[in-house]
């Protein structure tokens, strides 16, 4: 009998342990699942799903026709000329929607999926005019146009004409789209290598295509710095007591490529130069460069030799 009771108590304890074990596992799965779902929300978010979260009627502005979608091959059907910019930032998908109002200007919403936060940030930095607004990440507003990036999306909303009402709706739409993208994205790591002193935070361009570099700062008709998808690049403007200057940083995937690019730079642009020592160019500006392997750092358009030297010196060694 006693053995039976003992066996019975043992079974109950065992069952309780098993039950608690399963409950614990279930709790871990549920909590973990929620966390994972949250983390993956933006990862799995497509522009098609994103557009479903954006109202088609907003204070009298109604979406006209069906949303249109483009990819890297078809973007030129939608954006004349400027489509190359989005291709240069690895455009995956673009959603376009137009809103019309009986007595207001047309409003155009474009959402670009660039596939990565770095590229969304990069394409955002292509045009940095405007005033900061608290919409999405780094939102900017200029008359008629709102732009921001969030996670791997770049969002552009513009009104064909600027009115008080259209300006309000543009912002409202922007906030709605931004809210539909749950997670913010991280800025490119390369930005951390930029010296802080005198950095003009509203004049930082991130890119990885020489066509885009040439748009912001024409260097050469050929890709002498060997910039491509594997070489994150940043061009930043500085104002320091020693003078203004621009800093170009290119991070290469290997020491060999970094040094080869430096050789090309010297051969084609500053054959008279040696590393670190500033060289005065024909327009009176100064340039200087150094290898901070795997970074190639180049100071451009420095107003003084001291501005070039000190800015270059502030680039981290690694």
């Amino acid at each position, binding site marked *: 009998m006693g053995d039976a009771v003992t066996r019975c108590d043992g079974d109950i304890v065992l069952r309780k342990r098993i039950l608690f074990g399963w409950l614990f596992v279930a709790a871990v799965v549920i909590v973990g699942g929620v966390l994972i779902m949250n983390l993956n929300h933006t990862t799995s978010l497509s522009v098609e799903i994103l557009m479903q979260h954006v109202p088609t009627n907003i204070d009298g502005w109604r979406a006209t026709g069906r949303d249109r979608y483009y990819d890297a091959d078809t973007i030129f059907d939608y954006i004349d000329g400027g489509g190359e910019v989005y291709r240069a930032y690895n455009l995956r998908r673009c959603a376009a929607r137009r809103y019309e109002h009986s007595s207001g200007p047309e409003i155009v919403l474009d959402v670009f999926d660039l596939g990565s936060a770095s590229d969304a940030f990069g394409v955002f930095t292509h045009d940095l005019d405007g005033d900061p607004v608290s919409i999405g990440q780094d939102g900017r507003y200029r008359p008629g146009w709102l732009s921001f990036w969030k996670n791997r999306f770049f969002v552009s909303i513009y009104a*064909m004409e*600027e009115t008080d009402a259209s300006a309000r709706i543009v912002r409202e739409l922007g906030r709605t789209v931004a809210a539909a993208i749950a997670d913010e994205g991280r800025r490119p790591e390369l930005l951390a290598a930029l010296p802080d002193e005198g950095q003009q935070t509203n004049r930082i361009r991130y890119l990885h295509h020489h066509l885009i570099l040439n748009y912001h700062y024409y260097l*050469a008709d050929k890709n002498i710095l060997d910039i491509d998808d594997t070489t994150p690049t940043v061009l930043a403007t500085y104002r320091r007591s020693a003078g203004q200057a621009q800093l170009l940083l290119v991070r290469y995937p290997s020491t060999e490529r970094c040094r080869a690019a430096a050789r090309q730079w010297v051969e084609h642009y500053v054959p008279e130069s040696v590393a670190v020592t500033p060289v005065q160019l024909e327009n009176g500006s100064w340039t200087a460069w150094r290898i901070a392997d795997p970074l190639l750092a180049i100071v451009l358009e420095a107003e003084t030799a001291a501005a070039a030297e000190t800015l270059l010196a502030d680039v981290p060694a690694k």
Partner: protein
Amino acid sequence: MTNECKIITRRDFMVAGSFAVGGAMARPSLGQAPPTVQTDRSRVVLIRDKNVLDENGQVRKEVIARMLDDAIKALFNTGDALAPWRNLFKSSDIVGIKTNVWTPLPTPRALEETIQERLVAVGVDATNIGIKDRGLLQDPIFTRSTALVNVRPMRTHHWSGLGTLIKNHIMFTDQPWAYHGNACERLGAVWELPMVKGKTRLNILVMLTPLFHGVGPHHFSAAYTWPYYGLIVSTDPVAADTTGARIIEAKRRQHFGEDRPISPPPRHIAAADTQFGLGQSRPERIDLITLGFTEDLLLA
């Protein structure tokens, strides 16, 4: 990367004077092109009429036709609006009217039709006249053309700074991106292509509602257009573009309240003069005739 051909760098342009002394990238103002060996002068007519747009902003054909006729008469110093067309075009010509279909700001249909009608009026067979922007390289008129009329609205442009008459011929190449370097500075080279060279008899820059600043992926907002009600007409595309660009620059100064140079700088205009000899980019070598109202002319 290949070293087979000469690499053109920013320093080459510094040596040539395209980049002036200064800290940031200097942008050469229009009308300050380097000295050129050309000594000819060019005549440009700017005509404006507020009635050219109706209350909805639509072009009135009878007004734009009259503007074109008046401009042609002034340009060629004649009282007969058709006489210059007879001198410029033979009845046997195959004429391509190179227009521009950019959706937000296309060449007005009424203007295209007027040009077509003037060509027919001087004997050009209607079946030998084509109006087109895209697909020129496969077009039966443009591939056989013996003469061209170049007509487009002026606007700021993402890659070249300005969408100009010089740039309008870019569709004659199947590699437009090959001309993107240095803000499309070498666009004048397009005019050397066999389909283009020596054929453009008349250039008409539409300045009815020019775009003076571009924003967003589509580079357009009506907020940056304004009614200027003008046409600029010349046989010299560079002189016409130079005149139009001066107006755009002045409008930008007026609108922004500060000097806001066109970005990127439209270097291709001066280069079309100094590198390709297509015309005059220096205002002092342009004989500008203004017709119509002069309020806010923006050509001080």
